[in-house]
């Protein structure tokens, strides 16, 4: 029984991009406004979930040929290694540094190691969520 999902698919295509943008925005702005790595990751993940919802497993897999376990592992690795980096620099573990740069387009921008950390968090969240959902639905088939 094939269900016609044309409306859904059409609208999803637009919506997914809105969500993805928004997710990245949340992730980046987290330090000053609500948001941050975790929420950003969740939103990104929900975009992917929306893709799964509107189409099917195989299609998404084809268009996103990633093993999300590795994505998650990479995330954890990033998150921990920022902490680990500080060991190399001889400061207490997890020391974060930040600096302000005057970049041409963006104006005064803050660059911090927290961002890398948050990126790790976000990646993990995306990876884990997709892994979980993917494993369940794949298994149930």
């Amino acid at each position, binding site marked *: 029984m094939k269900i016609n999902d044309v409306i859904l698919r059409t609208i999803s295509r637009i919506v997914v991009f809105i969500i993805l943008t928004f997710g990245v925005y*949340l992730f980046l702005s*987290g*330090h*000053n*406004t*609500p*948001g*941050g*790595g*975790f*929420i950003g990751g*969740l*939103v990104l*993940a*929900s975009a992917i*979930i929306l893709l799964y919802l509107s189409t099917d497993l195989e299609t998404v897999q084809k268009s996103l040929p990633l093993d999300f*376990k590795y994505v*998650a*592992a990479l*995330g*954890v690795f990033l*998150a*921990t290694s920022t*902490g680990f980096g500080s060991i190399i620099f001889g400061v207490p*573990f*997890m020391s*974060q540094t*930040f600096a302000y740069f005057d970049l041409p387009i963006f104006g005064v921008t*803050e660059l*911090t190691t*927290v961002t890398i*950390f*948050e990126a*790790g*968090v976000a990646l*993990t*969240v995306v*990876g*884990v*969520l997709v*892994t*979980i*959902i993917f*494993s*369940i*639905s794949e*298994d*149930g088939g």
Partner: protein
Amino acid sequence: MFSINLVILIPFIVAALLPFSFRRFKKNHLGWFVLIVPTVLFVLLARLIPSVADGKTYIHTYEWIPTLDFNFTTYLDGLSMIFALLITGVGSLVILYSIFYLSSKESLQHFYCYLLLFMGAMLGVVFSDNLMVLYVFWELTSVSSFLLIAFWNHRQGSRQGAQKAMLITVSGGIAMLVGFIMLHTMTGSFSIREIIASVSEISDHALFLPAMILILLGAFTKSAQFPFHIWLPDAMEAPTPVSAYLHSATMVKAGIYLVARFTPVFGADEVWFWVVSIVGMITLFWGSFNAVRQTDLKALLAFSTVSQLGLIMSLLGLGSIALQFGYSADSVLYTQATFAALFHLINHSTFKGALFMVVGILDHELGTRDIRRLGGLMALMPFTFTVALIGSLSMAGLPPFNGFLSKEMFFAATVHIMEVDIFSLTSFGIIFPVVAWIASVLTFVYCMIIVFKVFLGKPQPEKLDKPIHEAPIGMLISPMILGALVVGIFFFPNLLGQYILQPAMGSIYPTFGDSAYLTPKISAWHGVKPELLMTIGVIIIGALLYKYLKLWKPFVYGFFPSIFTFNSLYNNLLASSVRNSNIVTNRYMNGLLRHYLVYIFVFFIVTVGSYLLYSRAFSFDISTNASFRVYEVCLVAIMAAAAVSMLFAKSRITATLLNGVLGYSIAIFFVLFRAPDLALTQLVVESVTTALFLLAFSHLPDWKKENLQTRTKLINGIVSVAVGLIVVLIGLSVVDFNQFDSISSYFEDAYELAGGANIVNAILGDFRGFDTMLEVVVLFIAGLGVYSMIKLRTKKEDENIEDQ
């Protein structure tokens, strides 16, 4: 310099080497090789006899755990010398005997390894000055004797006996350990010498009595005193050399050693006197009483050992009364009981060792130890018979054997004790000579049983599997040496008294000055005194009783059906504890998660709730609260409604959706309470959770109506309401408790400190970034776990073993 520590260690070292090196020796030579150890040790120790007899002592200390005052201190004095000589001397003989007894098909390396372990441990017990080290060796003797008893572990009986011995002696050991610790608490020292030195300070201490009782428990279990004697007969499952060694000369004597060693500490106490002597007396009687009924020779000897140990124990108890009086000419009289104890100790080792070996020979050569199947062996096994005769008569207390001497002294001591006028002995003192005499009569009877039933009478070759023949000469050497000693000591008792017993007396009565006064001249004839009359009485009555054994034996012993013995008490105790534990444990560990949870909740309610009420911790003040608006009340009402209706949801989707509603409403609260990040996260997580639920639902059955009994529902209801209530009460009190400011004002400088304007995020990413990192790890584990849980399934064949 020669060190006593080395004496202890040598057996251990050799024992450790044996399992690795036994292949180098041809099997039968192993025993010869091992024999060197005790012999060398014996000689080494014997060389020290003269100097020890002069009152010299040897102390050596090696540090083990100095922080805790556990030091490997050895102390060689007269008392330990006696025991050490017995251990090594009898040990040599037993090993010699075992070379012929055990066939080389047995796993000899194990046997000798255990035996050496045991020997080392025993030496350690008698030489240790530090109580903890003494305890170490004490338990080692339990362990190694366990191994020895279970040497033929394919036999059910061996295993049972070993288990019983181990359990009882280790229990006693643990009691003793507690006693030792109490002593340490009182005196601050683990050293026996120091404790003895400070004895006057502790005798009023509240722990003095418990410590004494506990240490005595240890001694009694080890020495098989009533009612702990039950392990000893069962331990006879061991190979006979083991029985000869453990149960005549060494292990059971450890308890005696302990009592003797602690006499200077506790001996002045009335309780000590009564407990030690009464328990000894009961054991003496009970052992001899039971020995008569046995038909297994080894069991008979076992009970006789019990009885003799009781005798020695009671003598030590009687002797302790001397400490009541301090040192005076009168009190020396009472120390003779102790002297008799030590003397009998040696004597017992000699004749009992000999007897065990004889029984071993019978068992080995004829294949049985059952009295009913033996008889008339005198002519066929003349050497064996001689040794048996010497041993039995000595045990019965007849001249010209050493048993006679010590038995006489025993009677004398009991008679003396009647005349003491403390501890209300004048009224009760009479029991000592009476019990002693009755027990001696019984002893006489069973000694006659050994001699007459086994060796005299008609031979019964038809009941035996093997032809009757004399044992090989090697096997006879050891019992004959012991037999010779039995006779030798009778004729030269004072040699022993002067060189060996006298210094030991000095150790037991350190406050009594020159020990030479404490050592009476031992003589076989000292006029017609009560003790001699008693001995004659024993012989006459005993002979009569033996003659009419058939008449009274069934009658008397019929009163004591085996149900009421301590043995069956022990067995029932174990069996019923296993059974009851099973019932109880299965009752509450019934595999129902609900029950477990109810237990946990009820525990929570009971402890926290009752404390809350009891301590009046609850306080409540609404005035500090923030204001609230109408719509907020409505929201709360909605959430409550949603929550409660979850309970009655007919389908799981409804419940899940309601859970979603709850989550969303909480997000609104987060908004109201100014927590934007939380609101965001809560919303997303809630949705994802709901989605997950839905995902999982497609693989799960729709839920059935719960058919719970009203009672269950009621319990659940009460429990949940109570839990909720307690949470509310504490919560309200906590809100009312406004003593401290939160540390979070610090974080308001987040922008300067961490370069973030969003405080929450600055905390998450920086101040408490570590939490976040771990939280990510948690998430990752969950994700990976879900994956592997779904992917990894058991194949059918694996399931069978695991899931039976």
